[in-house]
């Protein structure tokens, strides 16, 4: 399928002005900042110490002392959500980094070279896509053992073809442009053109995909932790908290409700942020409003 890219022609100032008028962007940005801030604050302060087990306080319902209640070990759910945010963000962010770091050069290279290289790369992509990502992530973590690092690798590997595909499609839409021909007539090599002309013009596309993959990474990490293959206790993680909550739904539903909401709100924020960025930078989608 061919991709059409409208290259917005605007200055930084006008983009910023538009960002302040875009509802999706503002809400998404606010939520993302809030979640990141929460994770950072957890390094210096949490309402309660999450490493201390207070069995006497187990499965307390939400109250003014424990806003979101406590879990079966008497740990404060709010504090655990704050600390768990670190894990979610770190895993998803590094996984996006892996995907972008490997996928984008691969995709742009394939688009620049074309022919056999391109075909081979796309078949390799097909291969990775043939494995349901979650199943493969489970296999990878099962082989190398559970843990946050292996979760990062597993999610990261499946980000690679996604970014390769997006970068390639974007680059293929840029290459036939006349300004690329002009650059070639000026004696620039394919690598130089890729770096100087192609990458800056597909940056928006990659940024938007980045936020999407970030959000998907948080969901995937939660899934892996939920089945016990992500971050290991005592390190709190949102997915693990949900696993612990599952058997206690009847006595302590808050154990499930609040960590889940944390995931939903974070993912929602990232998706809104991505939508907002796409809206602001892509004149085509703006026309649709």
């Amino acid at each position, binding site marked *: 399928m061919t991709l059409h890219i409208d290259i917005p*022609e605007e200055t930084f100032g006008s983009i910023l002005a538009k960002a302040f008028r875009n509802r999706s962007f503002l809400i998404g940005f606010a939520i993302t900042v809030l979640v990141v801030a929460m994770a950072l604050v957890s390094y210096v302060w949490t309402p309660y110490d999450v490493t201390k087990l207070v069995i006497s306080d187990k499965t307390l319902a939400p109250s003014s002392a424990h806003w979101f209640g406590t879990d079966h070990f008497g740990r404060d759910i709010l504090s655990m959500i704050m600390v768990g945010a670190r894990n979610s963000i770190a895993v998803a962010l590094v996984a996006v980094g892996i995907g972008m770091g490997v996928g984008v050069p691969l995709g742009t290279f394939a688009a620049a070279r074309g022919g056999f290289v391109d075909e081979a790369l796309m078949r390799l992509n097909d291969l990775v896509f043939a494995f349901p990502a979650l199943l493969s992530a489970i296999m990878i973590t099962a082989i190398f053992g559970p843990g946050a690092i292996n979760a990062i690798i597993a999610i990261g590997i499946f980000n690679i073809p996604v970014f390769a595909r997006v970068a390639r499609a974007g680059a293929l839409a840029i290459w036939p442009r006349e300004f690329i021909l*002009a*650059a070639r*007539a000026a004696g620039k090599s394919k690598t130089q053109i890729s770096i100087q002309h192609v990458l*800056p*013009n597909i940056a928006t596309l990659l940024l938007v995909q980045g936020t999407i993959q970030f959000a998907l990474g948080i969901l995937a990490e939660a899934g892996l932790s939920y089945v016990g293959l992500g971050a290991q206790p005592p390190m709190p993680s949102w997915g693990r908290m949900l696993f612990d909550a599952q058997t206690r739904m009847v006595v302590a539903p808050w154990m499930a409700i609040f960590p889940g909401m944390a995931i939903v709100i974070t993912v929602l924020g990232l998706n809104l942020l991505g939508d907002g960025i796409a809206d602001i930078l892509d004149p085509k989608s703006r026309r649709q409003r």
Partner: protein
Amino acid sequence: MSLLEIENLSLAIGGTPILKEVELSVAPGEVMGLVGESGSGKSMTALTIMQLLPHAARASGRVSFDGIDILAATEDQMCALRGDDIGMVFQEPMTALNPVKTIGEQIAEGIRWHTKASRAEAEDRARKMLDRVGLPEAKFPLSRYPHELSGGQRQRVVIAIACALKPKLLIADEPTTALDVVLQAQILDLLRGLVSENRMGLLLISHDLAVVTEMADRITILRHGEVMEAGDTARTLSEQLNPYTRQLALASMHVPARAKAHATGQGKPLLEVEGVTRDYSGRRTSLFQRPTPIRAVDDVSLSLAPGQSVALVGRSGCGKSTLARMILALDKSTSGTIRFRGETITGRSEAELKPARRDMQVVFQDPYGSFDPRQKVEKLVAEPLHVLEKKPTPAERREMVAHTLHEVGLGVSDMDKYPHEFSGGQRQRLSIARAIITRPKLVVADEPVSALDVSIRAQILDLFAELNQRLGIAYLFITHDLTVARAITDEVLVMHDGRIVERGKTSDVLDHPQSEAAKALVAAAPDLHRAIARRMQEQG
């Protein structure tokens, strides 16, 4: 009584005024030409009549068609009018047809909708209509899909859709702008025929004064949403009472002042092309056969002297752009040799090509697509400096860019702007600045003025002519527009189906074409002088 009567029409889209108090009328069987440069509001006038405006548009005034008040009509009333009493033909034939429906379905659809005819009846009428627009059954059955047709054929299908129910009014919005001159002449002929057969009124919208003059009984000249002048075609254009009308007419016929051609034929040729052929792999027709290659350029030879200005003319798809790309070493030839300044450039690596690239630059057609929107003018114009042996320092580079911008009529302050801050004409100046910054010996220009409005076009042609005189740059102009060729070239090469079929002095070839291809091009080329003269005779 008029068929279409527009009075005092004003239009604003999202608060931006587009049309101001426009007056226009079309009588039954009359051809009204609506002329204007880009942004004059001519397309919006058409969409107002059809009531297909964007949601944010607000119109005021009066538009009446056949006694119906269009601006007050309900959507149901409009649906009854559209396609039945008013047909419309659009500019871009490549995207105007639904790719997943056959042409038969698309023509029959309107017929069935309005006449409640049975499928068979509608298809029968669609068939007759296709025959009428020049797509006979043998080659163009109803079951064809749009992607199986060329641009000109698709435009015929769009015309068939618009005229299927013999509307009282046909609106044609730049119906031939996307086509080459020969196709343009054919499509205009077809429209003329359909209009007179059915006594349709035709509102012909175009930026091309010559086209409108050939077609229209009366013309209306629009500028920035306001009517400048309106009246009988012959009288309006011969008297040219309005200064804007005069400006448009002059620009359409503009020939830059050039001292006579450089002495040619002496010394070594700058560029020699010998027996160059370019094949593209064709579409596979069956699984077991090798696809037959498509020959875009077929055994072409030519040479160009230093300082000479040569036009390469031909219809779209004749291979002229492919040839240009091979000369620029942007595309590889299948066989043959290209020599530049005596050195062979075919089959060379990018590194070996550097010295040649220094002396050979390019100007493209689209002033919008030929600049990276993310870079500033200084960087864009300086891009070819990359091939210089000795890289200039940043200060030198800035100095060179400033100097070059001055040469093309732009200012030093333009250096720190982005391309979108310039108009189309200014961008083409930037394009030329980028092409001459390395002081090349040859500039290849691929349709460099065909995307520009006539008044801007005249200025850019002047600039090309001036640089040719002052810097002694040789030009290879790729164009389908004979006026451009006539304006600034010494020699013409006529290309047809991948071959060069005629060459000679520009005036000789254009006045006395020998080959069939050249004759067709000359005959089809709209010419304002000729058109006015003919109108004068007809309208007295």
